[in-house]
């Protein structure tokens, strides 16, 4: 099996699984218990928290462990706009956000908030001048992802931070799910930031929301008051510790992995360069490639590759079952044919050269198989 769907989820590192098991074994205590062992577990949780914040370059931020980025995004949007609703009702968002943002915003509309979308350039970047034009007195919240999950475009986080210096009441939320452990970015100055452990070779079911001022968030899960009362429920300590480790290993390996993955990306581009009716969408990070087989259905290509043991996806795992044209690709002005025929190949830190060779062979074989239907 050749796994090329690392933007959907990744395989945990061996040592991360060891950490998960050992923590579960040796520190199974409740971090909220006041006995000696509970306090020891709580100290381990704090060590994990400190490491996570340090690796993100946000040592001064609050870190709330959650079940993953979907929950973190919900907590950021619902928890913060709720607190800020007296200062305004308008939320700005890029058009290419993940469904965990988009659908939360839809829900906020029902609660009386207005949502305006920032235009996207053909390269998949937000249009900064449009953002600037949209900001008015009523805007309280802006949400922009760091790296897009469909095409991999990288958003200018620091430029947005600078733009907002004159608008202190606006909270900037960054969904960094596809960025963490893959690209070194400067997040200083953002209001909050979310990510999931399983996207950078950690285990599933854990993520975090880093927040410049955690107190300014209203909890969406109520209960025993864990995580500073912002996210109740017994803390998933093995998951959090394993996440801290996965983040360390991935972050430390960014330079080396990126150099390798750039070569993989180029090899796939070279292979496809010989084929007609193939369109490679503009990208950003090298580990995400979005390719259209114009005239075919993306699903057909995914299945054809699957029969050859290569796992890729159509748009994104979270949206691919929604059966509507992908928003990101629509937003960058891609045609209906290109969108329908698109697949996403995503490399991970464990991807090997041999697997990329197999992928290229499979792409060639599938092309031969379906080239009659391609335009």
């Amino acid at each position, binding site marked *: 099996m050749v796994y090329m769907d690392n933007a959907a989820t990744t395989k945990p590192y061996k040592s991360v699984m060891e*950490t998960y098991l*050992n*923590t579960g074994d040796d520190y199974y205590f409740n971090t909220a218990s006041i006995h000696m062992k509970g306090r*020891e577990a709580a*100290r*381990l949780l704090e*060590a*994990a928290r400190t*490491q996570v914040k340090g690796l993100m370059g946000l040592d001064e931020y609050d870190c709330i462990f959650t079940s993953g980025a979907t929950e973190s995004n919900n907590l950021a949007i619902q928890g913060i706009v709720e607190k800020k609703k007296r200062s305004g009702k308008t939320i700005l968002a890029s058009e290419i956000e993940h469904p965990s943002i988009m659908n939360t915003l839809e829900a906020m509309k029902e609660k009386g908030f207005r949502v305006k979308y920032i235009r996207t350039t053909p390269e998949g970047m937000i249009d900064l001048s449009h953002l600037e034009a949209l900001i008015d007195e009523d805007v309280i919240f802006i949400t922009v992802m760091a790296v897009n999950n469909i095409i991999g475009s990288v958003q200018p986080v620091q430029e947005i931070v600078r733009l907002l210096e004159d608008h202190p009441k606006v909270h900037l939320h960054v969904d960094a799910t596809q960025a963490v452990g893959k690209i070194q970015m400067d997040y200083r100055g953002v209001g909050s930031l979310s990510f999931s452990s399983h996207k950078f070779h950690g285990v599933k079911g854990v993520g975090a929301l880093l927040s410049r001022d955690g107190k300014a968030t209203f909890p969406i899960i109520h209960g025993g008051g864990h995580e500073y009362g912002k996210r109740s429920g017994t803390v998933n300590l093995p998951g959090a*510790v394993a996440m*801290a*480790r996965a983040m*360390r290993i991935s972050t430390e390996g960014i330079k080396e992995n990126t150099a390798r993955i750039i070569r993989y990306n180029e090899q796939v581009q070279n292979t496809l360069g010989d084929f007609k009716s193939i369109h490679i969408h503009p990208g950003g990070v090298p580990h995400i490639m979005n390719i259209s087989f114009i005239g075919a259905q993306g699903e057909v290509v995914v299945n054809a590759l699957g029969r050859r043991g290569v796992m890729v996806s159509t748009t994104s795992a979270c949206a691919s079952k929604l059966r509507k044209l992908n928003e990101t690709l629509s937003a960058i002005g891609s045609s209906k044919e290109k969108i329908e025929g698109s697949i996403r190949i995503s490399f991970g830190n464990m991807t090997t050269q041999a697997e990329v060779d197999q992928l290229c062979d499979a792409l060639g074989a599938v092309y031969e198989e379906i080239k009659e239907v391609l335009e």
Partner: protein
Amino acid sequence: MNYDYILVRYGEITLKTKNRKMFLNALQRSIERAMEGYDVAIDVQRDRAYIQIKDEPHEKIMDALENINGILSFSPVVKIETDEESMLNTAVALGKEFKHGETFKVEVKRVDKTYHLNTYDIQLLLGGYILENVEGISVDVRHPDHQLNVEVRPEAIYMYYEARQGMGGLPAGTGGKSLLMLSGGIDSPVAGLEVMKKGVEIEAIHFHSPPYTSPEATNKVKKLVEIMSRRTGTDIKLHIVPFTKLQTTIYEWIPDNFSMTTTRRIMLTIAEELARTVNAQAVINGENLGQVASQTLQSMHAINAVTSFPVLRPLLTLDKNEIVEKARAYGTYETSILPYEDCCTIFKPKAPKTRPSLEKVEKFESKVDFRPLIAEALENVECFSADEAEEKEAFAGLL
């Protein structure tokens, strides 16, 4: 031989009547701490404790009990059925552990007065059976090498012969708290461990003067604290005081032959302050009468004048070789003799006053205001604990 229990005899706890419960609770905590990770059941009774062994080899449990304060001695015990055959088989099995040429006697305690054999019958029966079945050993009722104890109780018979010496004294934490001045040399760790024997909990204070003293010197003191913690089943906290500014100020302002006295006076002042903060009721040091210049009675008088705290000097009258012997027995010696400079050896005056007068010292010191420097040193104390260091390492392995 497969033993079922370790029988633990108490030291001075047995002299306590009214507050024995408090001592027993403290002992229970110490035993529990030492037994962490072993599959045992601990039963602390009024006069003795029983540790039930499950799968662990009894030697490991015995080694762990050896360093616990408050335990006089302990024995591995076999529990058997109340029939004669079990008694005879066990007696021979134990007898086979005696060495060729050694002597023994059988001692019987018949708690179950209804048992069908009387004390004398059992002694005769077991003694004779061992002599018949184990070669090369003989009976000596006055000065035996081994005493084979048999306790006949209604529910079972208990047999044992080996008795290992424990630390004696009183359980940790029953005698208040003291602050140990820990230099890193041979004497101070011994002084601390001696006082701990009496159930006194300790924290330690160490002065370092970077860059004049090396990180190795501080690590050596941390290592000593680790050895002492492990040995006593406690977590001794080490407070590391930055002393460089005070040291250089003393060097600058106090005449060379009085600088040692002033240094010691300031260290004791800081120790007293810290002792107050950590709720210690006394300060301990490794001073020994006449060993070096600062340790004459006159010198002690001049130094001691800065504090109203009791300064405990458990090594006061010992000879150096006696201290070395204790350090070896406690396992601190090898670390203590590692050759790193501490702040006393670097700024050592060429000819320190052996009889400094308090009046003169005070006159010299009145020229400088040491108080802000002392306050600054106290504010920048770093705290180290072996448990925390171990925890940090364990966490680092996971993260």
